[in-house]
């Protein structure tokens, strides 16, 4: 599979809302308190309103991630991003993440598949691509290294 770097996105997680035990697992909602993104073809900020990650811890120990974020480029374009992902790993590593420790991202699986929508002519290439991201969970919020699938 061929890929090329699309952007790196750093987001800040505000307080996490514990919804609790739902029929499919344990639901938490992590509203994003803004962030930044930067890549060869676009850069800007993550808007805090309406950006959050809906987390579902499944009974098999896999965390499902369902992120929606609104990106604003430095030239004013709005881009809607939706990304489904999975996070899992050895219990000790996941526990360290839970304590807010910085963990080598290669020691656990944190991958997402972002999709983008925009009306801005300069960025319509985003409407036409599939992407894959590697996540790096930090105490302040995840860093996503997002690659375009060529």
């Amino acid at each position, binding site marked *: *599979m061929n890929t090329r770097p699309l952007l*790196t996105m750093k987001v800040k997680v505000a307080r996490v809302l514990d919804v609790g035990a739902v029929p499919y697992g344990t639901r938490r909602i992590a509203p994003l308190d803004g962030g930044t993104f930067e890549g060869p073809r676009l850069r800007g900020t993550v808007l805090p309103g309406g950006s959050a990650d809906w987390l579902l811890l499944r009974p098999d120990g896999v965390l499902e991630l369902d992120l929606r974020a609104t990106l604003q480029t430095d030239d004013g374009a709005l881009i809607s991003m939706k990304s489904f*992902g999975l996070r899992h790993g050895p219990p000790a590593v996941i526990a360290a993440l839970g304590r807010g420790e910085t963990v080598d991202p*290669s020691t656990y699986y944190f991958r997402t598949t972002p*999709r983008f929508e925009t009306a801005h002519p300069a960025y319509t290439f985003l409407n*036409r*691509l*599939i992407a894959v991201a*590697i996540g790096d969970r930090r105490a302040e919020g995840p860093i996503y290294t997002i690659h375009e699938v060529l």
Partner: protein
Amino acid sequence: MTAPINSRSLMVLRLATSPIEEIGSTPEGTLTIFPVTGGSFEGERLRGKVLSGGGDWVTVRSNGMMTLDLRIALETDDGSLIHMTFTGIRDDANGYFRTVPRFETAAPRYAFLNRLLAVGTAEIRPEGPVHLIEEIL
């Protein structure tokens, strides 16, 4: 610093479809359903047949690209059932046909499928669509 994306082959999926069902113009675009009547899948870790009964819901969008929404059931050669879905993009103007498959199974032997993300590269061959699906490592 940009970590590379590594992947490894998961399966080659070949689908057989019956005549399309043209739903037509909807608020989302032009919707066509491709019923899946069978097929096969093969990889190092799993192989078997595609069961009849699923389909791919394909919508032509206002920008000319197609979006795909497939759901099918796979049966491995040892009798396990795997529920497979994907969404994807087919953009013939750019020769781009990629999907993001997901799998669900209750079979312990194949539980690794529940825990991975994958990307498919597809092409339409005379015998039907062929998807080369890679696990994202």
